[in-house]
């Protein structure tokens, strides 16, 4: 059958999984309603473990040693809380503790930019001196014309000609990798690409996953050696959940241009910058394309199965995918393939 039709899976709660099939849930009373754990939230357990699930309005702790972080607020002492000040959750999510800081991670959240984040974005709009960039955040980010590398060297002054030719650098729909430079009061990010690491993205494919599924790492640009003659592949894991997977290109600053011809030091910046804004892909072999697609599938499967994406998991997942499907042209229509690959990858992580 060319098409796979799956009946919808019944909703499984965490409780169902923990208990035996015949078990009676303790928190169900005779009517089948969820038993109230007392009428007041103060009766609930305090000092919850990290990883515990809380809902908005639920008291996380009354212990004064903790500091409140994201997703929590301080409630004033009242008779309900027995005169103690308490930290109350304002999100539905899991508790995370960093030293003495308590914060709640929502299960699903939009990306909130932070200074220094590496993000992948797509140009939404070209304005007179800047671009509006979609980075999956509540507000679109801005990229000022003055925050990019201009052809002719980093130190060149911005001129009115550049303003007129703004579309020659980035146009609507273009993808770029950038760093969050500043944040305004309302949380709007301003990006910059003033490094040869950043700039326009080429030679690859773009995909999105939920922002929370990318683990923050030291470096968000991975270079992977692929099998089947795929060569090296760069993975830009944007903190915002936007991911770009491309054929590895030698940084232009290293001894000469991409073709290996030597470029004089004085012309180096110019050569580099002009290539930066090119819209033409390099020659990419079918083998590389296949491996890029495989990596994209692995990352998609990881995110779909609730496994955070980081360097280790991408590597393990890729290895697992290679073992599962050597040529890898048949897993696309197989709904379970992703799950098998992720499980194999997780098993590898436990072993190693």
């Amino acid at each position, binding site marked *: 059958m*060319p098409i796979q039709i799956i*009946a919808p899976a019944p909703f499984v709660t965490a409780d169902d999984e923990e208990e035996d099939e015949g078990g009676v849930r303790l928190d169900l009373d005779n009517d089948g309603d969820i038993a109230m754990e007392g009428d007041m939230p103060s009766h609930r357990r305090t000092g919850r473990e990290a990883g515990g699930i809380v809902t908005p309005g639920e008291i996380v702790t009354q212990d004064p040693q903790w500091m409140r972080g994201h997703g929590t607020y301080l409630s004033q002492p009242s008779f309900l809380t027995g005169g103690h000040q308490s930290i109350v959750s304002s999100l539905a999510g899991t508790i995370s503790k960093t030293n003495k800081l308590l914060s709640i991670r929502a299960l699903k959240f939009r990306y909130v930019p932070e200074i220094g984040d590496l993000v992948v974005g797509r140009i939404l709009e070209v304005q007179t001196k800047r671009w509006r960039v979609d980075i999956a955040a509540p507000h679109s980010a801005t990229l000022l014309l003055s925050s990019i590398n201009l052809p002719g060297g980093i130190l060149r002054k911005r001129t009115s000609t550049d303003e007129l030719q703004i579309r020659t650098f980035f146009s609507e729909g273009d993808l770029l990798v950038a760093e969050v430079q500043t944040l305004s009061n309302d949380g709007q990010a301003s990006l910059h690409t003033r490094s040869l690491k950043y700039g326009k993205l080429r030679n690859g494919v773009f995909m999105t996953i939920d922002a929370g599924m990318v683990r923050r790492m030291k470096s968000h640009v991975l270079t992977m050696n692929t099998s089947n003659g795929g060569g090296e592949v760069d993975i830009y894991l944007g903190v915002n959940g936007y991911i770009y997977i491309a054929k590895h290109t030698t940084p232009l600053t290293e001894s000469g241009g991409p073709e290996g011809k030597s470029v004089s030091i004085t012309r180096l910046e110019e050569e580099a910058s002009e290539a930066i804004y090119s819209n033409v892909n390099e020659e*990419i072999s079918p083998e590389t394309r*296949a491996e890029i697609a495989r990596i994209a599938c692995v990352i998609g499967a990881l995110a779909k199965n609730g496994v955070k994406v980081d360097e280790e998991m991408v590597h393990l997942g890729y290895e697992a995918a290679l073992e599962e499907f050597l040529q890898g*042209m048949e897993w696309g229509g197989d709904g379970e393939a992703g799950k098998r690959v992720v499980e194999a990858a997780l098993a590898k992580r436990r072993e190693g």
Partner: protein
Amino acid sequence: MPPPTPLSPPELSYLYASLSLSPPIRLDLRTPTQFRPIVAECSFLPHCNGSARVCMSEAGECIVGIKAEVEKDATTKYVTVIEREKWIEVSVEVAGGGASGAGSGVGIGGISGAGGATGRDEGDGGAAVWLKEGLLAGGAGGWSILDRLVISSGWHWKLYIDVLLLTPTSHPSPLLLSTAVNMALDSTYLPKLTSPHDVDDIPTFSDDWAISVPLYEPTTFPRPPMSLPVVAVGDNVFLDPSVAEVATAEAGLVVTLSLSDSEGSCDIVGVRSMEVGRGGGKEGDRKGINRKLLRQMVNACVKEAGGVIKGLGETTHKQMFRA
């Protein structure tokens, strides 16, 4: 109307090159004729004569409810074709009324939605027209679904097919809509008539659902029709194209087919061109479909459609009689 955020030129050329390779490399590692898995269930709305819910990974989720109402023929003696075609009403609504907003990816890939700046109205109007066209055309040997809707002289069923897209999009995926409507129709049952056929009086029906009459007899013919989107990139033909593939494609068709026998051979009941992104529209590129490519695209659909329709029918049947 261009999609809200088009793909960038390097992306398009990368995709175009990958898809026109031989063999082509699809980004999700499918073979050209492979479909993405879908999640589907039917007959779950108690207030409807037939219903279906279909989820697809990219196209989102949609619910179809089919309600049948008893209606008196508009004219007593003569039923014009126009009147008869009003017996089926198809509407496509987007829940929440939102077209795709910023950052939700490319919005291209609908069946029509072309006609200009009107956005939602246009796209959905087109989808409804096309879905209905397939229904009216479908059937073997002069069979028409309209004949099944005749109750008695002067009375007929009026069938409301309401498609609700739960995922906001301005260009609904033809496969999603078609699958959902197919399953919903297949699970539609009408109350059994208890009054005689040839009497002009108000008809009466049995309230026992156990003896209700299926609109499409299960496991026999004809079956509800099914529309398959197909796009072409270079010399390659792809079934069930993803959004990015539609944006890259040079030509696209939606082929509507209905099963003609139990071996799974199909009749074509409709072909429509589909709006595609044309891979960036470079000069000298293909601007339409030549006859060879047309043959190739339709053939790909014809080959796979039997299995798809049969598979859907079996799933529906299984779910209907499980309860």
